[in-house]
């Protein structure tokens, strides 16, 4: 696929939005980057997810480094959670290759719906507001 200047501008804007949200809410930018690529750039669902994961790696590296210097990374806990996270990421990534783009988009949309509803329902909950 040929990438035009317009596409690059859109991609930068999508990335920027994803990054700002991820920095502010502490979430990976995938919820913005994936639909941004699918809807605005016409990227296929699997490819959009692949790019989102790679971009996320960069963002997480920078973000974790900044937080680490502020002593806001509890490494002992990360070490305990990481092994199962890695195993299931491997499994999930493999499983994604088994389904069609249409189905993957549908599951993605359902996940967004659940995440969004939860955010709205618990928006005033303890997390975030009580930052100390």
């Amino acid at each position: 696929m040929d990438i035009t200047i317009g596409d690059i501008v859109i991609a930068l804007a999508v990335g920027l939005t994803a990054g700002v949200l991820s920095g502010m809410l502490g979430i990976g930018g995938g919820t913005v980057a994936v639909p941004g690529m699918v809807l605005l750039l016409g990227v296929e669902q699997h490819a959009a997810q692949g790019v989102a994961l790679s971009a996320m790696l960069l963002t997480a590296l920078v973000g974790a480094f900044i937080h680490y210097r502020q002593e806001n990374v509890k490494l002992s806990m990360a070490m305990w959670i990481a092994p199962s996270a890695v195993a299931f990421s491997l499994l999930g990534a493999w499983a994604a290759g088994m389904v069609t783009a249409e189905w993957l988009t549908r599951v993605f949309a359902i996940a967004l719906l659940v995440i969004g509803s939860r955010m709205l329902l618990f928006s005033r909950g303890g997390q975030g507001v009580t930052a100390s």
Partner: protein
Amino acid sequence: MQRKAVWYLTAGAGAGTLAGFLGIGGGIILVPMLAGVLCLNQHRAHGTSLAIIIPIAMVGTLVYALRGDVNWEWVATIGAGSVTGAVVGAKLMMKLPAYRLRQIFGVYTIAIAAILFLR
């Protein structure tokens, strides 16, 4: 300790599956788990979540790349945007109340879900 180990496994499994299967960071599961269940304060939950996302994203990228689902030109542009945005976002975090941010984000995700369905 045993109960904690179960939570570690669950948090990792949830975040890992979501990330690998849908390309969503997993922070959406990790942050509430770390803050709510494992009792880290919000800033430490953010930092620790990001640290866990590093190996998750690494493995995910590898699998997608091997399958040919990673276009590096998109990675360069989206990545450049999101790294810049993350630095800006981390600074903005203090300016806007978290609950307002979550409301905006909640409306946004539901709207996107609707568009993806109706497309």
